[in-house]
Each structure stands twice: as C-alpha cells, then as structure tokens.
C-alpha cells in the first residue's frame, strides 16, 4: 500500500510518500502506526503522540480502529488548519 505524509508528519519522517508492505499481523490503522514506529527514529519521533495523528484511507477520514484491509492509499497527517 502507498503511505502519504503531510505537514510536520512529512517533515519528521523525511518522506512525502512511500510503498510499504506491513506484516499480516497489522490489521488496523492503530497497529499500522505501532508498526511504523519500529521502522526508525524518524518514524518514532513523527508518530510519538498517535492521538495527534489524523488518518485517511483512500482519501476519506477514518478513525484509528479502522481496518486497513483493501486500503490502496493511507494518508497520515496532523490536525488540519484550513480556511
């Protein structure tokens, strides 16, 4: 699946997007965040406060208990400040 990052999540991870293949044991957004944190210091720092991370699956907002099965694209970003 493709992960896309925005704002300070993008800056801290140091990437705008990447393709990942999480292990089968990762079934929800919350588990995905936990798994990403093990991939390096940048990830651990960016995702240190998971409650501050907003998530979209296939460009629609979801909660962190949402299953990730069937997700083509998952966006991770801070609370939005539009308008």
């Amino acid at each position: 699946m493709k992960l896309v990052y925005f704002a300070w999540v993008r800056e801290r991870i140091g990437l705008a997007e990447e393709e990942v293949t999480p292990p089968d044991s990762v079934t929800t957004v919350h588990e995905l965040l936990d798994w990403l944190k093990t991939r390096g210091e940048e990830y651990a720092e960016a995702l240190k406060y998971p409650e501050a991370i907003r998530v979209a699956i296939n460009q629609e907002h979801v909660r962190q208990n949402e299953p990730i099965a069937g997700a083509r694209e998952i966006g991770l970003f801070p609370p939005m400040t539009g308008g």
Partner: protein
Amino acid sequence: MPCRIAVRIQSEPFDTAAEIADIGRGDSDVGAVVTFSGLCRDEAGTLAALEIEHYPGMAEAEITRIAEDAAERWPVSALSVIHRHGRIGIGEPIVLVVAASRHRQAAFSAAEYLMDFLKSRAPFWKKEHRVDGSAGSWVDAKEADEQAISRWE
C-alpha cells in the same frame, strides 16, 4: 433542482466579484448570495506569509462531501468553494465560500456550516513564514474550531 457544487483548489488568487456574478448567472430563482472570504493575517506584525500545504485529490473530495452535506440540510441553489495553496502573502485571500439560495437564511447557514467543517476536516495545513526570517512553525489546530463543528450535530 439539485444544488450546483463547484470546488477549486488553486495557487492563483481569485476574483470574488466574478465568483458572485457567476453563481447567479442563468438561475433566475436565486434571490440571495452570501460570501465568506478568509484572509492571511500578519499576527501582530510577526508574519510575512503563510505556506499552505494540501492533500491533492482528497482536498477537493472532502470539501465536495461537506458541500453535499450542506446542500442536504438547506435548500441552496449553488455552493462554490475556492481554497488556495502555496505561499500566501499578508492580506491576500486564502479561501472563498459562495452560497446562493432563494431566500437568505439557507445561504447564510450553508456558508457557515461549510466553513466550520472546512477548517478542521479539509486536508490543509498552514506553515508560518516569519518577518524576522526565523524558522516558522506549523499553525496548531484550535480547540475552538473543533468545538464549532459540534453545534451542527
């Protein structure tokens, strides 16, 4: 007649007067047009500009979903939303909402609803460029904006 919804995400400035003229054109049933313009503030002289990042594709889709919700709640004839991205100078417009309806109340309410949800649901993020050249920070989301949504539930 279904509500006409138009959403544009662009870096260029926009012409508010032209948007107001466009929304009523060809629809003689429109009796009220309400607009909201959001501008870039200088925060007591400390800011030189804002850099607005967005999630391409989702930004359009999410604002369209919000506009569709508004059109289900109130009898509006048309809703247009323009949101800019990239570098925005002080005093420049960032966002425009134009709502048209037969009578004014639907247009006022729909415009307010759209802005309330756009602020904390549309995927945009603001970064500060400071006058003194120091590294600007990302603007924090406001609790008040989150609370503004709850009054519509």
